[in-house]
């Protein structure tokens, strides 16, 4: 018992020492840097204020109101995304031992678009309603496997406009199968069922021969891998459409009720609204988005296998992306997916050769973000930008 007390004392001392260090860093480094940014960005805010006023009057009802600087930030981001096929062809990076090198990051950018769809799909259900799903890879994987089975069993020449709607429909059916029994329950039970659903689907891929076992099913790519430019835009455009649609949804009454369910479900019931109905709606919408994402991923690869599509790690990665960007912020989840994916495929690649170590470092970073910035990077950034424009913190 005395050793236990000793461990406690050491830990307590370490934690108080750590908070002291953080305080010093904040006072001497972060705050002055923040002031410099405030000083530099204030003119930008003023320049964009008239445009922001127009935006708030016309689109504010659907997309939410912004300050000048926030609008400038959104516009810059979208401009960067829209021109990604051009500047992504060669960015300059620093590799230890090699010096400055040119990198083509259009492939990671293209895949980040798909994962952004997944992260937003997870966010609109789990992030907004607070019913955390660990099983969203079942939905995207269900859509992917439907496409692959159709191509393998019916005809390998089925066009996308036939397979895609059926696959999205399959995702919705799977979603309803999970949601109808489990969303009547409160608390952690829902998460348990979704977690078990992933394990079950993973097992099913091995139990049924039609699903191809652990080797998976081979298919022909719809989007050719050779042309990075076209592939990026073919994946970016659906992603942007989904981002806009989900943002509108999250700012509508539906989004409000989803948030209310997360904050206080009893209050939602007391207001005469059936929370179960809206929880199922959110899951349904999420299933559609996940289905579309699954179809997008299937179109860009040549093999549908359990490791790439179903395994629980995939669900956790979606969650990690949404967490990095900010839970319950559709666009934050989108940004989080890009940050996560570019960190994983580009930035950490430069420093760490070992794939597993790279992921380990990445997931530890996500845990740190959860502990120290649980609102997510993009939500923090968004409010900081708003403060410069005079918005209340």
């Amino acid at each position: 018992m005395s050793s236990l007390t000793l461990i406690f004392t050491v830990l307590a001392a370490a934690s108080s020492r750590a908070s002291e260090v953080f305080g010093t860093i904040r006072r001497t480094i972060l705050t002055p840097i923040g002031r410099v940014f405030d000083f530099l960005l204030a003119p930008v805010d003023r320049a964009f204020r008239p445009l922001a006023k127009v935006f708030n009057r016309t689109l504010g009802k659907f997309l939410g109101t912004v300050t000048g600087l926030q609008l400038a930030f959104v516009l810059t981001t979208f401009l960067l995304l829209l021109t990604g096929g051009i500047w992504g062809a060669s960015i300059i990076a620093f590799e230890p031992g090699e010096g400055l090198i040119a990198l083509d990051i259009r492939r990671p950018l293209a895949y980040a678009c798909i994962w952004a769809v997944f992260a937003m799909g997870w966010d609109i259900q789990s992030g907004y309603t607070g019913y955390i799903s660990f099983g969203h890879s079942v939905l995207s994987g269900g859509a992917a496997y439907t496409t692959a089975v159709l191509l393998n069993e019916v005809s390998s020449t089925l066009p996308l406009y036939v397979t895609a709607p059926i696959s999205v429909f399959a995702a919705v059916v799977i979603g309803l199968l999970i949601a109808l029994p489990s969303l009547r329950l409160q608390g952690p039970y829902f998460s348990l069922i979704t977690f078990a659903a992933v394990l079950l689907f993973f097992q099913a891929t091995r139990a049924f021969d039609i699903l191809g076992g652990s080797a998976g099913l081979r298919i022909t790519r719809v989007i050719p891998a050779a042309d990075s430019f076209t592939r990026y835009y073919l994946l970016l455009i659906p992603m942007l459409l989904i981002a806009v649609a989900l943002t509108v949804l999250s700012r509508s009454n539906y989004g409000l009720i989803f948030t209310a369910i997360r904050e206080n479900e009893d209050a939602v019931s007391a207001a005469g609204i059936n929370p179960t109905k809206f929880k199922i709606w959110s899951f349904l919408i999420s299933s559609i988005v996940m289905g579309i994402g699954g179809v997008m991923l299937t179109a860009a690869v040549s093999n549908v296998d359990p490791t790439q599509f179903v395994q629980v790690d995939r669900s956790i990665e979606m969650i990690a992306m949404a967490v990095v960007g900010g839970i319950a912020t559709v666009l934050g989840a989108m940004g989080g997916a890009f940050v996560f994916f570019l960190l994983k495929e580009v930035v950490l690649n430069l420093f760490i050769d070992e794939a597993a170590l790279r992921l380990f470092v990445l997931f530890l970073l996500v845990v740190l973000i959860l502990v120290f910035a649980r609102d997510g990077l993009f939500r923090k950034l968004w409010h900081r930008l708003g403060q410069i424009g005079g918005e209340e913190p």
Partner: protein
Amino acid sequence: MIGAIATAIIQATLVSAVYALIAIGFTMIFGVAGVLNLAHGALLMAGAYVYGIVVMRNIVPSMTYHPAVGVIAGIVVVAILSLLLYELLVRWVEDNVVITFLSTVILAVASTEFLVWIFGGQNIRISLIEGQFALANARVAYYEAIGFAVSWIAIALLWFYVTQTDDGRSILATSMSERGAQLTGVNIRMVRAKTWIIAGALAGLGGMFLGFDSGLSPLMWLNPLAVAFIAVVVGGIGSIKGSVAGAYLIGFIEQITVELIGNGFRGMPTLILLVGFLLFMPQGLFGREFAHE
């Protein structure tokens, strides 16, 4: 036919004993701290790997200690890891259920990647002692019999500790009413730390016996975590007695499924059981023992 049934029953009993070890720690942490620790599977995995490192020649050639040393090392190391998990991570986020959920599960995935990095993704065999004996037509490996005995010894010790000593009763009291326990002078912080240590020790023990059965692999945390979940829901969240009963129920249903349908369908009937319990009996079999405020 009779022989096959006897074999199945014996196998199921042996498997269930290990499941019980896995589920108890998970349920205790939920009962006392109100935290669903999704990194529980990672703790199990840590136990198995520590044993492998200390004892097996094929992992670290210079370390080949006696298996007993390995078992003790596994228990102690995982107990410490469990305490560190609480002190360094869970304590800072436990006010928010969603963040606790997410951070523990992401930590579990991070531990998988860590093990892939250090040991590679392949399955590594570990063993306690070789050999087997016959019991009513069934072949029982020595390690399975030891696992069964160890499981019940651990349960008995835990029962004695929680019901017969003041120290243990403070844990029980905290799980029933944190406020009440605090008013009678129980140090809640210490109780929580003890709970995490005990849960870690049990997880380390259970993890080792899982490892003897199916080897070490970086994804070995997944299925046991699902088993712990289901056992806890079936038995009633927070109830130790219930989680033991739940573990045995799952072990038997799995074994029957494997015998009658095939190994590929191992998890499916238990999932149906889970959904059934959630819908019609969400409090579980013994749900009232550890009532949480």
